[in-house]
């Protein structure tokens, strides 16, 4: 039963991704051609609200519903993994025209070809697990 809340959040997230067109290949292409403000507006306005909210949480030491600390731990310091990993991700994001959230949304919208992208993403994750110790982090 406790998982129902995640299902509901997932449905809400899926609706927003689809309705905002962030799940559309066309919007991703347009963004990387700097031809529209739409995607920058989505990410930017999410960030403005996000930054303000996280500051409020931190300054007032707001806890989770069950009274524990929120998952806002600082990320490990490194440049290589974030930059190289980020560039690889960006190449894929623009090639498939979808990032992980929208992939599932598009599967639900009935685009069967996206299953190949999801299969690729699982394979990529698996490959990373195999090569992790050989990569600069």
């Amino acid at each position, binding site marked *: 039963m406790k998982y129902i809340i995640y299902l509901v*959040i997932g449905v809400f997230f899926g609706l927003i991704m689809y309705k905002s067109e962030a799940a559309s290949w066309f919007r991703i292409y347009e963004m990387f051609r700097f031809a529209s403000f739409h995607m920058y507006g989505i*990410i930017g306005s999410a960030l403005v609200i*996000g930054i303000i*909210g996280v500051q409020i949480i931190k300054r007032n030491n707001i806890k989770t519903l069950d009274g524990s600390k929120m998952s806002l731990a600082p990320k490990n310091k490194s440049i290589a993994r974030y930059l190289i990993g980020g560039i690889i991700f960006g190449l*894929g994001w623009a090639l498939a025209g979808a990032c*992980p959230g929208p992939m599932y949304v598009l599967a639900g*919208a009935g685009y069967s070809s996206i299953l190949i992208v999801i299969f690729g993403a699982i394979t*990529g994750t*698996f490959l990373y697990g195999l090569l992790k110790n050989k990569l600069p982090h």
Partner: protein
Amino acid sequence: MNFIYESLPWYVSGPLIALVMFVLLIIGKQFGMSSNLRTACAAFGAGKASDFFKFDWKAERWNLMLVIGAVLGGFIASNYISNNTVEINPVIVQELAENYNIKNAGETYLPKEIFGIKALDSPFIIAVLFIGGLLVGFGARYAGGCTSGHAISGLSNLQLPSLIAVIGFFIGGLIMVNFIYPLIF
């Protein structure tokens, strides 16, 4: 009532995405849509091949529920509350038609030349889809997060690593669309 079929403006979508992040924080989780890929690998038994997948994946089942929810959300949105068109910049519509022979920009949600069932007759398109996914999965785990984990969660928490990752996302995306697309499509 026609407005419910229209696209959601950016100034509504962005804050709603932030809301998703806050709801997850309040119930003790972190917003990220790519860690479920690792959970999926672990659930398929990848722990036998690498320690990276040896963890209590059952404790991460919540993110698989999030995925199922996202699938349902996509189904509901596309079938009941969307006209399934994306009004992009007319300059881009023309550019796609002239340079890449993608003709249905502005009329459909995804280009049928890439995502249509007939497009799968082409091994090249299958490779594009698979390699695109491969890079997304590999890069997201290498960078420790994707658009939601770094560009939304991490940047909201003013994390420098997330800023580096997001700069990486854009370097990769810009190279792909502006330099590699003209070579391969």
